[in-house]
């Protein structure tokens, strides 16, 4: 099951990364305009 678990971890990690990085970009004024 380790491999199955890693897949879920990868997917969750990427969504979290995309949101968090965007949040940081906005706080630092580096984000693109909508």
């Amino acid at each position, binding site marked *: 099951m380790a491999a199955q678990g890693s*897949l879920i971890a*990868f997917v969750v990690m*990427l969504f979290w990364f*995309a949101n968090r990085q965007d949040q940081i970009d906005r706080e630092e004024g580096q984000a693109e305009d909508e």
Partner: protein
Amino acid sequence: MATQSKAGSGDFIDNLGRIYALYTGGFFAFVVVLAILEQLGVPNKFIGYGFVFLTIAVYALIGILSRTAEVGEYYVAGRRVPAFYNGMATGADWMSGASFVGMAGTLFLLGYDGLAFVLGWTGGYVLVAILIAPFLRKFGAYTVPDFFSERFGGNFARFLAVIVLICCSFTYVTAQIYATGIIASRFLDINFTVAVYVGLFGILLCSMLGGMKAVTWTQVAQYIVLIVAYLIPVIILSTKKYGIPIPQLTYGQALSDIASLEGQMAAKGLIATVKDAAGAVAVAKPHIKPFTTYDPLNYFALILCLMVGTASLPHILMRYFTTPSVREARSSVAWSLFFIFLLYFTAPAYAAFSKLEVYGLVAGGAKLSELPQWMFTYGNLGLVKVCGVDVKAAQDVIAACGKIAGHPGVLRFQDLAINPDVIVLSTPEIAGMPYVIAGLVAAGGLAAALSTADGLLLAIANALSHDIYYKMVNPNATTKTRLVVARILLVVVAIAAAYTASTKPADILSMVAWAFSLAAAGIFPALVMGIWWKRATTAGAVTGMILGFGICLYYLIGTRYFAVSFHEMWGWLGTASQAQLDTFAKLKQAWLAAPEAGKAAAYAALDRHAQSIASWWGVRNISCALFGLPVGFLSIWIVSMFTAAPSQAVQDMVDATRRPRGETIIKDKDAVVVGH
């Protein structure tokens, strides 16, 4: 079906959800209609025709509706593909014939060790999202080599990137066309060579007129077909066996049933067994036991190479050039992995259910005179062997098994050799499902192979037309000429790949796995250092690419084609046992002493043995990037430190690449929409 809306207009992008929902509904209705027709007695052959021709016709229609005369549309789909749909398109682009047709098969044969592929091919997306994709999107390149040229000032770095790109993509595309040919010849009942060109025609119709734009929207459609086709058979199997339609939940149950069947077969002598230290009989290769095929070093090396290779394959990276913003490029990688996950999460269950069916057949004591029909169907294509002969006629099989000492006269698991590529295609037939399910799976496999072939062909043709022709040969070419050249090159590359595939080159097919290591060693170090280290210089990058790629290629070719001399030169680094070394010496003596007529055969035996022992530290050649990566990174670092730092302009450019806000770095005069 539901793609009448004029592709490319603002309307189309706004209505994507409705259009693809209609399309998915239409596809389900189509499957239901064929299922009804089958029940009414329409011959299987026509059901097969229906699936193959109608799905190709729909892809072609989307391709034609998305035709374009704009460079920005042709190369990067106008940079307005929403993250969600780009994720779906990447899923189809990524999941090749190998993933769809071969992954469950590999897991079927290798059991636990096959999971290295699942991990490597998904973990790579984490690298793509964090290290590469958003930055390349901000860069605003049309192709991956564009980045190399801009960052490492000049066409030499660009040229090297094009070489690596073609080396890894061409073998890969050949394998896709080969897979298309296998499926089309099985379900259309036509000659393999003809089938290859039928597949080629389908591929070209999708990509030629609309380039990236057409490929994007067909890939979304192909993803829907392939995921439906993959999930339905496993859901049916899971429901039939355990009454729960979620295969991931019943997978554990299937695994324990597999283990108990393995025990039963071992007791009856129907599966290869070994005696353990205590003298007890054990199954030689239990499904769930780790490291039966790879030792831990090779297992983790393979995962690393596949991960890094995934993050370096140009046809994947270029998909992220099409999103409207850097923000969407990031979330698009997440969506890509989600859509890939849907299939990969199911693959181990698919393999387990399929193995369960075959074990059930063997454990039940199948008589050689009563082999099931599916063995003959695929045996005729040379893909299923029993006792070493293709299953074509029952008496041949009985004769072949009769020659094996102590054969019990019923099918043993070790007698059966199924080509991993037919596991997925044949499972519906193995499990005795209606033919319409087999046709559906074929349509899915076809979609997977076609979509990947499209993406790869476009990557190769764009590198030739944009990087070589426009940037290096004729920078003054007009938009019209550029697009004409791009299309001609696409057709030329496609025909070359189809011709290669039609010769059934065994070598090329085994080389596909090499593409990952080659891409990893040739592209990854320079790409990552270029983005993440301002001090990386042109000389450093060029040296790193040449040395990293070179050492990987040397190891691959050395251990595969010149194994004897490779072993003689590097034997001191190898891990061969004394017994293996003695065998080598003995075979070498036999070859030297052999008479003229027997030389070739003696050498072949020597070479075969040498291939199994020629290595550095026992690393398999599929993982050659294990050497290429450190060499690449180190040489970029060392040479960069000895050369003058890049100019301030280049350093500022790298800095700008890392900030999502602002204009793209490369500004194309004829791009339609570039960023916001």
